[in-house]
């Protein structure tokens, strides 16, 4: 979410064991979305569904 809304991290992350991660920079991701409208819409739909689920869970 920090990648999408540009706000600071909302939690801390610590490696619990030796790990290998895939990394996607915010700049690359946002540039990619700018060039791919249907994927940007897909990400927007996923975020909206999460919001809907969250709101339904709290009401």
């Amino acid at each position, binding site marked *: *979410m920090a990648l*999408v*809304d*540009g*706000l600071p991290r*909302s939690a801390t992350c610590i490696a619990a064991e030796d790990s290998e991660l895939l990394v996607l920079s915010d700049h690359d991701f*946002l540039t990619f*979305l*700018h*060039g*791919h*409208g*249907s994927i*940007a*819409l897909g*990400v*927007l*739909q996923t*975020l*909206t*569904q*999460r*919001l*809907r689920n*969250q*709101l*339904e*869970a*709290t*009401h």
Partner: protein
Amino acid sequence: MPDHEISLYKIIERSSFLQKVDLFRDLSPKYLASIARLIDEIHLLKGEVLFEIGDPGDYMYIIRQGSISIRVHGDEVAALGEQACLGEMALIDGLPRSASAVVLSEANLMRIASHDFRKLLENKPEISLALMKTIAIRLREADAHQEKGTEA
């Protein structure tokens, strides 16, 4: 259907109203104008039903004037006034209405068809990105709200 012949004055006037709407707050004037072109306006009288639970999410609405009651099985869960959005989530994710909407006082609404809006989003990813930001902020707020409720 939105107006095919829409005056420049109308576009500017609707754009400046859209700018005040929370969902669109991160959009530049250029994109507000492309949304303004998709809008048509409807007038409703007190007591009229705008939509019922389970209806398809075919339009999103923005209140210009008047107020709307949002009800779940007859109980009011929210009363919305000027500048409020209704049905914006159904418009994005295409799911059916999760509540009913009844007019509380004579209302003027701006309406955008989901089909037109989604087509606009596919052609202009910048709008999706701006909306993502607004939705992510709302999601953070909802997460924080839930954490508060579930913490021991």
